[in-house]
């Protein structure tokens, strides 16, 4: 039994609900199944509109799918009783792409990170503060940042705060929904390094959703390709992904820009 089992998920968005005959259905997830083992990272890559974020929401328990099951440690997260759902939620956290919209602009770093702890742990004020400080230090920030507001941080620092909030409850699985996509190259590699370290230290599992196959390649143990709501390939190793002849994978791999503009092919850009 894997940590997370996604079984035949189907989901559509409907529009024109007022009149029944006018309902338009847009299928965003089509028969998706995969498993994530404890302590591993599954990278899900796909272009915009492939259904990556919807799948993330379905797994996080905030978007019930129309068909299929999400089993977390063997429990169906949508059909489990309230107590079990609360336990599951504790072990299932998220880091979003947009670090700025992921934090309430009116709260300090301390309030942001302590929110999950307040909900699940019975800590005294002093214990809560020391836990938050240790979390801040773990993600590369310091005690001085405790009382700062989001506008006083850079995008990378805010993403560190989001990561601190996500790991505060020592979850089993973190859904990283394009978590490094909005960061610059240097910050991106620093955050990826931090995520790798945390994975080791806390025995975390990740579902790394991204359109950036380089980032996915650097952190994932297994890789899946999502295209038009379907999981078209699931590679058990990075090598399989690297040597894949799947046209979508080839197209995505070809679209990676070279590190230096001089080496970027003009013909590729024209295409």
């Amino acid at each position, binding site marked *: 039994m894997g940590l997370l089992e996604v079984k035949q998920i189907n989901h559509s968005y409907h529009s024109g609900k007022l009149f029944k005959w006018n309902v338009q259905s847009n299928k965003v997830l089509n028969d998706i199944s995969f498993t994530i083992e404890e302590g591993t990272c599954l990278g899900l890559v796909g272009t915009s509109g492939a259904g990556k974020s919807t799948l993330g929401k379905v797994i996080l328990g905030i978007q019930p799918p129309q068909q299929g099951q999400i089993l977390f440690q063997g429990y169906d997260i949508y059909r489990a009783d309230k107590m079990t759902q609360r336990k599951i*939620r*504790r072990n299932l*956290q*998220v880091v979003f792409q947009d670090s700025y919209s992921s934090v*309430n602009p*009116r709260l300090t770093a301390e309030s942001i990170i302590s*929110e999950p702890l307040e909900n699940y742990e019975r800590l005294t004020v002093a214990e809560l503060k020391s836990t938050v400080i240790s979390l801040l230090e773990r993600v590369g920030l310091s005690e001085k940042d405790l009382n700062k507001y989001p506008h006083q941080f850079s995008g990378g620092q805010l993403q560190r705060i989001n990561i601190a909030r996500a790991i505060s409850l020592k979850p089993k699985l973190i859904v990283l929904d394009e978590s490094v996509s909005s960061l610059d190259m240097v910050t991106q590699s620093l955050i990826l390094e931090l995520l790798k370290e945390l994975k080791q230290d806390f025995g975390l599992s990740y579902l790394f959703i991204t359109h950036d196959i380089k980032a996915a390649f650097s952190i994932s143990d297994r890789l899946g390709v999502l295209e038009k709501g379907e999981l078209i390939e699931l590679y058990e190793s990075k090598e399989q992904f690297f040597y894949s002849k799947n046209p979508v994978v080839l197209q995505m791999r070809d679209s990676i820009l070279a590190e230096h503009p001089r080496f970027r092919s003009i013909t590729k850009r024209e295409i």
Partner: protein
Amino acid sequence: MMAQFREILKSQTVIVICSVVLCLLFLMTILAPWIAPNDPVAVNLAHKLQSPSMNYPLGTDHLGRCTLSRILYGARTSLGFAMLIFISSLSIGLIIGIIAGYKGGWIDQLLMRIGEGVMAVPNLLLVLGFVGIWGAGLKQVILALILVQWVYYARIIRGMVLSLKEQNYITAAKISGSSQWKIIKKHILPNVLPPLAVMGTLEMGWAIMDLSSMSFLGLGIQPPTPEWGAMIHEGKSYIRTNPALMIYPGLMIMLIVVSFNLLGEALSERFGIKRR
């Protein structure tokens, strides 16, 4: 410190002037019993329709009552009840707006359709309906104005909550195990209240106007209670001989409504808040 203060005065002239005027008016309402020269309801027919004098600085009305005292006490009634209308309608609008926006679905549809139904009825018609049932009086006017006004707040707040709900930090809070109540208290209310306070300044002006209009029509505050709208109503029979009876309360209404409106406009411009 002084340089900073001067900078604020220069850049936010309208906000500063309007705030000072409103503060003075509020002070006037609070200090009315101490600064009013005479009893505002004491009838003295021997001194009726007098010109300004030492005893009666703004003269007297048709029943010999001191106009200045009535204006000072009238500020209490006008501002006090306008505040009551504002706070009550804001509270109702806040609760309904948050429920509709946060819950969505059929609850949202139901509450908003009820609101639209209420909006379709003009203020005056609703007041006339209540007056027809319970007779003329302040209670009926206040109830009618609250019943109409909450819808505007509810619609604005619902819109704000709908956009806030889509923010990632609300989703993150849900995933972090926060209850609905905690999310509303910690994440939604603090983000909704500041723009509402700005919009409230505009609404206060309208509430004073509405209340005074109803009193002018004889539907609201009943004699002998001093109120600016009612004072204009009483003074209209003497418009040719003693226009001051209408001018003074009229000027007060204008001053307070203009101050509230300009302050509201300036604040919403300053903080980039869109109004309905």
